[in-house]
């Protein structure tokens, strides 16, 4: 049984992209893996999320609405989502450059640089926050030069942006890198030999191939930034209506043992994040489909 299906697969014509495979698989187990997927997702993701919404449901709608539309909460959404989107966008641009440099060129210390990219993953976020604050405070290495120019980074929304860029960087680099490694330079050379300018070769040939990976990286960096608390809290300054991120609003509620209020804010974050991530996914599928034509 197993051997026959293996032969079948070997004899099957190469798959065209986009068409679902109809042949028997070498390794069976769709039922099993789907079962595990659903159970695992339910236990690890859905149940805690359901608990958030259940807890929120102890509020009346009027209370819920008053909680999620309070002045400090609304200001914090603007800051948290705005800064996270901006940070993810900046990381997408620079992450692409980093990935490009690491994949396309060999230079001494390349492996070291490559390893450095992952550090924001490994560093406890509180340490990152303290380190960044130390750098950008008015007596810090960088802050001392920015301060005379009138640029304040630590304890302002700009500081929040810096922290979010820091923690989001690896996502874009790590998602783009493998795709770029697979993308042969022959494509660019072919484009050039057909008369494309460098800019055309990049925007028409390289970029479309990388767009899905870039969007995934963007989405991951964004999602990570929205939920980030540890590093931001040290550099933010936490001034109400100016530099309070949404996770801090949640902590403020928990400090008053207002668990329902905290989960109400959390549910807003979840819903907005889900919508944004969903839109990014749809966009990604669309660009991928368009790229194939």
């Amino acid at each position, binding site marked *: 049984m197993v051997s026959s299906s293996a032969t079948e697969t070997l004899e099957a014509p190469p798959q065209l992209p986009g068409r679902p495979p109809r042949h028997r698989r070498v390794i069976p187990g769709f039922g099993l893996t789907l079962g595990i997927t659903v159970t695992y997702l339910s236990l690890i993701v859905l149940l805690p999320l359901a608990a958030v919404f*259940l*807890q929120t449901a102890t509020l009346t709608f009027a209370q819920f609405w008053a909680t999620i539309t309070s002045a400090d909460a609304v200001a914090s959404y603007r800051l948290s989502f705005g800064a996270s989107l901006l940070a993810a966008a900046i990381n997408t641009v620079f992450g692409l450059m980093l990935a490009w440099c690491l994949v396309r060129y060999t230079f001494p210390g390349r492996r070291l640089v490559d390893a450095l990219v992952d550090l924001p993953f490994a560093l406890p976020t509180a340490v990152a926050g303290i380190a960044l604050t130390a750098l950008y405070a*008015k007596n*810090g290495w960088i802050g001392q030069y920015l301060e005379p120019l009138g640029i304040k980074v*630590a*304890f302002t929304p700009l500081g929040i942006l810096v922290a979010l860029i820091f923690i989001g960087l690896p996502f874009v680099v790590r998602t783009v890198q493998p795709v770029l490694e697979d993308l042969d330079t022959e494509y660019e050379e072919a484009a050039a030999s057909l008369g494309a300018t460098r800019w055309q070769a990049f925007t028409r040939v390289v970029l479309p191939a990388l767009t899905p990976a870039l969007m995934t990286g963007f989405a991951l960096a964004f999602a990570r930034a929205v939920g980030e608390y540890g590093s931001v809290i*040290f550099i933010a300054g936490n001034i*109400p209506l100016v530099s309070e991120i949404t996770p801090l609003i949640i*902590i403020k509620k928990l*400090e008053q043992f207002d668990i329902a209020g905290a989960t109400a804010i959390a549910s807003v974050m979840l819903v907005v994040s889900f919508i944004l991530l969903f839109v990014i996914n749809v966009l990604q599928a669309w660009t991928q489909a368009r790229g194939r034509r």
Partner: protein
Amino acid sequence: MRIVQPPAHIRTSSVGLGWALVTAFIAAMMPVTSARAETALLNVSYDVTRELYKDINPAFINAWKASTGATITLNQSHGGSSKQALAVMSGLEADVVTMNQQTDIDAIAERGLIKPDWASRLPNAATPYTTTMIFLVRKGNPKGIADWGDLVKPGTSVVIPNPKVTGNGRFSYLAAWGYALQSSGGKPEAAKEFVQKLLANVPVFDGGGRGATTTFTQRDIGDVLVTFENEVNLIQKELGADKFEIVYPSISIEAAPPVAVVDAVVDKKGTRKQAEAYLAFLFTPEAQAIIAKHYYRPRDAAALAAAPLKPGRTKLFQVEKLIGEWKKVQAEHFADGGIYDQIVIKR
């Protein structure tokens, strides 16, 4: 002695299967203390008492061994006071809680885990020591800060931790409120205006007391740091007296961190005798001397006299006497939409 990290994400288990599962999961991850032959107590405490209980626990273990011949283990859990209270409410099996505010223990009592009379079971309303809020200024006191009135002057930058999320910040806020109340002859309107001006001078609201210390001492932010007396003395000791000066204001708040046995837990585990002995030990001369060493104000007069701490001119007021019952103060000032929210947004 093992340090038990507080579970960061436990919430209340009052609603839903989800919470029950989450709590059960976390409980399963906790080190099993009761399975051991010897008795183990878990003391759930607030953030900055690490050093204090690190000294007190071995002393209690020795005293317990000497008086009963039994060995006992003490586990510690530290974190933000209210977060720790939340963890206990959610099922963290604390034999005793040593919090920095009465409201945190009251909140646990409201869940029925601690009997309502907890404060009357030990001397001094179950508070083994006190401290107060004083100032730390930069060497030479360039802004000439002598009292609360100097903190509202335009151009003076004041560092306090976030009153919404830290006990430290709440005590700072209430100390300023009490000063203004007293100097205006008891007018809450005047106090409100005064505290509003003070908050307008705060450039950073750190999420913790230690964070505010770092902002002031390492980041060079602010002309004055308002924090606990023991923290101020610790800064002086750790960072050297040549960089900062201590200023005692004319009046400040008495902060008395309370302790309580968690009745529901000790009755279940059968550790009531040990837990009560542990808390009673905090009031003995031996423990009081250790408390004094850590720059708190012990209740014991002899220990206070021998303390390295030199309490300045500050007259202390009690929140209950000057401003109101803690519960009412909490609801009026720090609840969402309360006085703090109103004035900090207008600042």
